[in-house]
């Protein structure tokens, strides 16, 4: 067990099961995050980014969501084997999460001070009332909100301020791992930059490991040490930020992602999106999930899931870089 890694996810499989259908949200996902590192989890809507995050906290919808197999090691401990009591002690204390939409993620009938205090009290029951209040005040100051506003209600805050409050709640107990699920998607651009640089500063200050879930490659470039690109419930490419941004070899999906960003230096008439749609998660293709959209798809891509090609820290799950790609013989387990 490598405790230099704060988080190790192996072969995770998650489904959402309803009476009508089974949605295969996560299909054999592998992920590692080193202590103090920041991982950018990139992918389009529906790729399973949020499901991955909720699995780490075991907060999947209880009726439909199910973790079928795999392992999630947090600081060397198996999360999937922990009972609810143990999970409650971890949530908000050692692993925190910042959700996507600040407008709805605060309780409208409680003051923001109470909501921050709750996180502190839950994990420090012995702390006196005054100390909790002091901590609430300092948490607010930390995210750039004057502490007298702790008696105000969420509706008295703007979107960006609300997200700051959500971040203050997440960081109140100085967690070892912070999962930020598209923390800036719902904010306008100027506020995005502020919130993002604040998250970066606080991460460095507390030496928190972080998973930054986003579909914005610009944010990844600014904040992340490592990057994992997700497609249809699996990681199709991962590596250091240098690997992803500077290396020549890429998964065709990653290439498509980069191509769909408009380039200011080159004059073009049209944007170049990736053709086609994400595969239906209730009916995934047998081979590589990206093969129906892939411009380089070969015979073998439609038949088998590609194994991982590794070059130092850079991993790509694609037949293009593997000898089997040309010959079509048996691949690895992934």
């Amino acid at each position, binding site marked *: 067990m490598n405790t230099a890694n704060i988080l190790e996810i192996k072969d995770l499989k998650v489904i959402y099961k309803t009476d009508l259908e089974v949605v295969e949200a996560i299909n054999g996902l592998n992920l590692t995050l080193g202590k103090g590192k920041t991982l950018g989890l990139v992918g389009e809507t529906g790729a399973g980014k949020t499901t991955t995050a909720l699995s780490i906290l075991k907060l999947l919808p209880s*009726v439909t969501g199910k973790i079928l197999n795999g392992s999630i090691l947090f600081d060397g401990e198996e999360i999937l084997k922990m009972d609810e009591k143990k999970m409650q002690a971890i*949530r908000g204390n050692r692993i925190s999460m910042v959700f996507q939409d600040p407008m*709805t*993620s*605060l309780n*409208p009938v409680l003051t923001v001070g109470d909501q921050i205090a709750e996180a502190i009290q839950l994990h420090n029951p012995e702390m006196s009332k005054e100390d909790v209040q002091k901590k609430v005040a300092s948490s607010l100051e930390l995210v750039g909100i004057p502490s007298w506003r702790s008696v105000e209600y969420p509706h008295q805050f703007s979107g960006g301020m609300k997200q700051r409050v959500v971040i203050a*709640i997440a960081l109140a107990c100085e967690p070892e791992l912070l999962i930020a699920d598209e923390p800036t998607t719902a904010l306008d651009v100027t506020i995005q930059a502020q919130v993002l640089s604040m998250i970066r500063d606080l991460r460095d200050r507390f030496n928190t490991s972080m998973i930054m879930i986003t579909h914005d490659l610009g944010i990844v470039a600014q904040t992340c040490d490592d990057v994992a690109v997700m497609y249809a419930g699996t990681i199709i490419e991962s590596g250091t930020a240098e690997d992803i941004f500077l290396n020549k070899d890429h998964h065709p999906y990653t290439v498509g992602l980069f191509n769909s960003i408009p380039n200011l230096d080159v004059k073009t008439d049209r944007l170049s999106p990736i053709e086609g749609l994400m595969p239906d998660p209730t009916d995934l293709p047998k081979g590589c999930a990206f093969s129906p959209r892939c411009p380089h798809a070969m015979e073998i891509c439609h038949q088998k899931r590609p194994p991982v090609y590794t070059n130092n820290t850079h991993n790509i799950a694609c037949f293009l870089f593997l000898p089997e790609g040309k010959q079509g013989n048996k691949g690895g387990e992934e």
Partner: protein
Amino acid sequence: MYRYVFKRLLFLIPTILGVTLIIYAVMSITPGDPGRSMLGTSAPQADVDAYNEALGYNLPFFQKYLNYLIKMIFHQDFGISYFTKLPVFQEIWPRFLVTIKLAFFGIILSTLVGVPFGIYAAVKQYSAFDTITSLVAFFMAAFPAFVLGLMFLYIFALKLNLLPSYGIATFAHYIMPAMAISIPPAAQNMRFTKSSMLEAIRQDYVRTARAKGAPERTVIWKHTLRNALLPVVTQIGLNLGMLIAGAVVVERIFSIPGIGSLIVDRISYKDEPVIIAGTILISITFTIVMLIVDILYAYIDPRIRAKYAKLKG
């Protein structure tokens, strides 16, 4: 907030004016007159006319209405009943208290049963408890109070001889009518609370609370319930209207001297003073209950409190 309450109380004035006007208008176009009802079908028309004249019944509609308002506002006089010749207030007040008592029991019972069952059914969604209570509530919400009243009479009074079947002499007399009157709204409350809880429990802030590490108990009581209660409080307030209206039938079945049965009785005699005074009393009660609901709303939801604070100017 106080200003808001005061303002709302001022709204009572147009409410009362409107209610009395409508009742007077409706009474003036319905056939029949108090003289004929009192003196009987065989009385000569001249006697009937004289009787009506003496009551002031024959005055033009609008003048009658104005006279009534002036007497009510400046002399606190609701007039004399055409039928019993007793002062109206003296006649309706004790009966009003009986109905309020019954409606109060109904509200308490329907809330105490409906809301907790609804909460539990939502928390244990898809459990046996949820399935059974939801099914029972589904049927009970469709049962009119009088059917339940008759069933109770048959079972508890006639067959088992456990409870008295009529009157209001003791507390035991209230049990059956209160049950009959509160079961349909209790079933509604339950269904309403359940759906409201299920709605609230899916909200993002509930997930935030869970992500903080809050135990399920805190998630339900602190984060979900208060948000889910808002529509339920309105529903309970509206129940009161239903209870008073439903009381008429239940009062009849259990021979309870309440205001509902009084008004219905006197409509056939065209006893205008009693009908109008009774209706006014009911509308004032209803308005005050809705005001209490609004104050509770503000207490529960800070966003609404803020809105009221802005209304000051």
